[in-house]
């Protein structure tokens, strides 16, 4: 490699790192309401069989997803009610036509309905992507009575911002919520970090993201209980944040509802745990950003 090529490569890598650093900003000293030590968002990705349908998976895979709509989502709603927890239900717009009754029940119980794409994909064409986002927002508003302000999706942040969304919950550039910035360094959206390590499907859903048989996820509930409780405790020690991602067709199985019941009880046994909807956490962070905390730029590369 010539020295010119080495310099060019170095410049390219530095530009990529600088771009990364200029597109998000962490909050310094983010503190939770009423002195809480940790904020916990329980989130439900209610795609049922939609993703499997989109991937053209066979009938039994769709039936596996259908469990989420017929059985699982109801059990999760019961679990949240028993613990007096408000959750966020990330819902593909199409689910409004498949399981309207469950969504109405969720909204009545005070849970937040948020966007999870129209049919679990973001079209490449910008107009169609906007159309999907608007259709989902309208469908969720028709069912829940409120236009969603949050999303778990691959939509461009600028599009979500344009459509009045205040947060996305998809990336994990930090443990704690952070701002996603536009090209001029202005905050566009809040990101509520979601991580695959705290996602039930990663441990329990066979053929997840078309994974092959030798890499299957067949964990038992004790193992996931231990891992997730350890994640909670680590964040608890540092005034952190935990976003737990559940799929009704996965976590709605009886053995996992029982595990989650134990997990939530173990978290509640600690003082100062703030269980909130994603919207509540997002609004708290946005208020803190403008009112009480001087945001500090992420370290420049």
């Amino acid at each position, binding site marked *: 490699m010539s020295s010119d090529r080495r310099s060019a490569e170095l410049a390219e890598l530095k530009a990529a790192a600088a771009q990364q650093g200029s597109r998000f900003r962490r909050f310094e000293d983010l503190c939770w309401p009423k002195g809480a030590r940790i904020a916990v968002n329980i989130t439900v990705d209610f795609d049922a*069989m*939609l993703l499997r*349908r*989109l991937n053209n*998976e*066979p*009938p*039994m*895979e*769709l*039936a*596996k997803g*259908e*469990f989420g*709509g*017929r*059985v699982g989502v*109801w059990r999760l709603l019961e679990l949240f009610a028993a613990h007096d927890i408000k959750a966020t239900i990330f819902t593909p717009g*199409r689910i409004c*036509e*498949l*399981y*309207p*009754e*469950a969504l109405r029940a969720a909204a009545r119980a005070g849970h937040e309905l948020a966007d999870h794409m*129209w*049919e679990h994909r973001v*079209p490449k064409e910008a107009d*169609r992507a906007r*159309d*999907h986002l608007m*259709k989902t927002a309208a469908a969720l508003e028709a069912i829940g009575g409120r236009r969603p302000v949050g999303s778990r999706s691959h939509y461009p942040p600028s599009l979500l911002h344009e459509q009045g969304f205040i947060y996305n919950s998809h990336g994990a550039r930090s443990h704690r919520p952070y701002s996603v910035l536009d090209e001029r360094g202005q905050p566009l959206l809040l990101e509520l970090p979601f991580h695959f390590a705290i996602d039930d499907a990663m441990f*329990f859903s*066979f*053929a997840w993201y078309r994974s092959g*048989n*030798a890499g*299957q996820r*067949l*964990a*038992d*509930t*004790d*193992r996931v209980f231990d891992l997730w409780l350890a994640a909670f405790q680590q964040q608890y020690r540092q005034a952190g944040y935990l976003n737990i991602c559940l799929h009704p067709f996965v976590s709605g*199985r*009886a*053995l996992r*509802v*029982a*595990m989650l019941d134990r997990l939530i009880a173990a978290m509640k046994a600690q003082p100062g745990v703030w269980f909130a909807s994603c919207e509540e956490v997002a609004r708290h962070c946005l208020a803190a950003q403008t009112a009480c905390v001087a945001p500090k730029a992420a370290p420049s590369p």
Partner: protein
Amino acid sequence: MPWKQGYTISDEKSLADAEVHWPDGKRCAIHIVVDLSVASGPEGIGAEDLASPAAAFAVNDGLEGLLDALARQALRATFAVPAVMAECYPDRVKDIVGRGHEVAAHGFKGEDVSALRREEEKARIALATDVLAAIAGRRPAGWFALPRQKDAFAGGAISANTMGLLLEAGYDYMGNGLADDLPHYWVTDFASRQAILTLPYYYHFDDQFFCMFPTEGTGLENPDALLRNWRAEFDAQYRRGRFFGMTLHPQHSGWCHRLAGLEEFLGGLGRLSDLWNPTGAQCARYWSETYPAAKSLKLAPSIWQDYPGSLS
């Protein structure tokens, strides 16, 4: 588009725990399925499978071990038998019937039928039914389409025609569905409300995914996780008063310490006097009479719409 075809196969909401009742005031049902297939992949049982050491173990030590454990624990099971296994081992199948277990069909050779033409699939169902009826002494009431270790998915493979063909062939139930953890109706025709009763299955309670999975030799051995799954699900479903189903294979659960673990688990259940342990046909008969589709299947009219730029 009619109903939610291509998306859902049953109604919008399952029965609540409080709506579930079992015979004689029993609290929970336990259904044990023993899969007699030795197929390793979607093509079903081949000569190589039948010649393997695992198959020899399955039809001898493994099966004997399971049958003895079931007898000691006074439990009944449904044996899902591929027709070719009955042809190759008729005495084994007769022995299973003689011990009070149910023999159900598991395909012609435990194969993936999803790519078969309708006529071919129909012919195989007829042949498998006749073979099993002749050897077991009665027509099978249930049909299984269980998965194999090398399948791309863990739920079992059917074609678009399978469920309708099973109704036509007079089957009372289909043995492995995933849309509920109770018996439920799989709708084959929305307009006429035609549906086949389907018993629940879940791969987390099927030993083949925990015993040298996916391939003997390089696979992963997790029988401890399987036991924890059985215990956790049984405890939860027993509390709810619903249904617990497990799927066993002689070549997997019949082996050594796995068999000991299985029997320890089953022995724990034996202490519970309020468990109902039907075979598939007994469970299907009770369910069809107590929760007939005409009354319990609540199919809402479709509000599904077609949109440009969306999947239909």
